[in-house]
C-alpha cells in the first residue's frame, strides 16, 4: 500500500466512523493527499527531505545554537563534506555544525544536516575521529533512518489531522516532525545504529582517514559512567559503546589492515 493510499484508507475509515456527510468526500480526500509532504511510502522527494531536515535543524539550533567560532564551523564542514562525498549522495548540500552543549552527542536530520555537540568535540583527539563521528551521522542520512521513523510514527496522526482540516500547507512539516527537535532524541532501531557504524568506518577509510577513528571515539565514550549526565541521552538512544565495538569488531575483522589511513592529529582544530 502506498503512503497516499494508506492515508486515504485511514481517512476513509475515520470518515465512516464519524459519519461525515456534508461535504464533497472525493475532493476532500484529494486535498488531504496533496497536503502531504510525500508522494509515497517508499520515500519523499529530495526537496521534501531537505525541507523536513531544515525544520528539524532549525528547531535543534533553537535549543543549542552553533558555537561562535567560524573557523571551527568551516573546518568541520570541510572534513564532513569530503567524507559525505564518499557516499552515494555526494551532491546533497551537506551542512555540519558544532553546537553549544556539554552533552556528548551527535545528531543527524534528513537532507544532510549534521551536528556534533561541543562536549563530544572536546573528547576528540584527531581529524580521523571527527571524520568517523560525522560519517556515522552521514550513514543515518543516506539510509534515511529518521525519515523512516517519521513516516511510520506520524502517519496515523497525520491522517486524522488532515481529515479534521486542522492542517494547512505551512503547518504540514511541523505536524510531521512533532514538537521542537524531539525527533533527534528518538531511538532508532539498534540495527540502524550498527549499520551507521559500519557505514561510518567505510566512509572514513574511503576518504583516506584511519578507519579506526570512530571505534576510538566509542572506546573513549565507553569510559563514561552511565550516571554521568553528559551521556544520559546518548546511552538511552544508542546501544552501549561496548556492544557497538563488539559489532564493529566482527564486521571489520582484518579488512582494514592493509589500509594506511591518516589520523591528522596536528591539523585537528582545537576549540579555544
Amino acid at each position: 500500500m502506498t503512503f497516499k493510499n494508506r492515508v486515504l484508507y485511514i481517512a476513509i475509515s475515520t470518515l465512516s466512523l464519524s459519519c461525515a456527510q456534508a461535504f464533497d468526500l472525493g475532493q476532500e480526500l484529494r486535498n488531504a493527499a496533496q497536503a502531504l509532504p510525500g508522494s509515497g511510502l517508499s520515500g519523499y522527494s529530495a526537496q521534501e527531505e531537505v525541507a523536513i531536515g531544515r525544520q528539524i535543524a532549525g528547531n535543534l539550533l533553537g535549543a543549542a545554537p552553533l558555537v561562535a567560532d567560524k573557523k571551527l564551523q568551516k573546518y568541520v564542514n570541510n572534513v564532513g563534506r569530503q567524507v559525505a562525498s564518499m557516499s552515494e549522495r555526494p551532491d546533497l548540500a551537506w551542512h555540519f555544525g558544532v553546537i553549544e552543549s556539554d552533552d556528548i552527542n551527535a545528531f543527524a536530520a534528513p537532507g544532510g544536516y549534521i551536528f556534533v555537540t561541543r562536549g563530544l568535540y572536546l573528547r576528540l583527539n584527531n581529524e580521523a575521529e571527527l571524520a568517523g563521528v560525522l560519517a556515522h551521522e552521514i550513514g543515518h542520512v543516506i539510509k534515511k533512518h529518521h525519515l523512516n521513523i517519521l513516516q511510520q510514527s506520524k502517519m496515523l496522526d497525520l491522517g486524522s489531522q488532515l481529515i479534521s482540516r486542522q492542517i494547512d500547507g505551512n503547518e504540514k512539516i511541523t505536524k510531521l516532525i512533532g514538537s521542537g527537535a524531539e525527533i533527534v532524541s528518538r531511538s532508532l532501531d539498534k540495527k540502524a545504529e550498527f549499520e551507521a557504524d559500519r557505514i561510518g568506518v567505510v566512509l572514513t577509510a574511503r576518504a583516506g582517514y584511519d578507519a579506526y577513528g570512530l571505534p576510538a571515539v566509542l572506546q573513549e565514550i565507553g569510559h563514561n559512567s552511565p550516571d554521568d549526565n553528559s551521556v544520559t541521552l546518548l546511552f538511552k538512544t544508542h546501544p552501549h559503546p561496548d556492544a557497538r565495538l563488539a559489532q564493529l569488531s566482527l564486521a571489520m575483522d582484518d579488512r582494514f589492515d592493509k589500509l594506511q589511513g591518516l589520523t591528522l592529529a596536528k591539523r585537528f582544530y582545537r576549540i579555544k
Partner: protein
Amino acid sequence: MKPQIILIMLLTSAFAQAGENGTTIKADRLRAAPFSDAATLAALPAGSRVEILKKEGGWFQVKTIKGSGWLRMLSLRVTKKTGSELSGLASLATGRAGTGKIVSTTGIRGLNEEQLKAAKYDEQQVTLVESYTSSRAEAQKFANLAKLKSKQVDYLPAPASGD
C-alpha cells in the same frame, strides 16, 4: 602559546597513552608488530588484562603477563586506570582539560529530551549553518592539503552473529 596550554598538551600526550588498561573481550594473538601478518608472540585468552602503552590506528601496543606486543584495538575493552588520583589526572589530560572543564564550571549546558521537545525554530541559526557549507571542490582541496587520498573500500555486510 600560553605555558598552561603547553603543559596541558604535554600531559595529554603522556597520559592519553599511559593512563589506560584493557581487558581482552575475545581470544587474540599478541603480535610483534601492528600488522595481521606479523609474528605471533603469544596467545591471549579472552579476559586477559593488559596495560596500554601506545595506540596506532587499529592497534594498541600493550604489556601483558606474557610480555609486550601489539593487539587489535577491537579485541580490547579499555578502562581507565583505577585509583582516584590517577583517573583524575587522566581525565584532566584527555583533552577536556583546557576547555571542557572550564566551560563546565561556568554552568553545564545539557541537551535532554525536554529541552529538545521545547526547542523553538531559529531561522537565523539555520541560515548561519548553511553559510558555512563547503562545496565538493572546496572539501577536496582541503583534503589534498593534508595529502588525504581517497580509496576504494566496499561497504561491510552485517556480521552473521550480529543483531
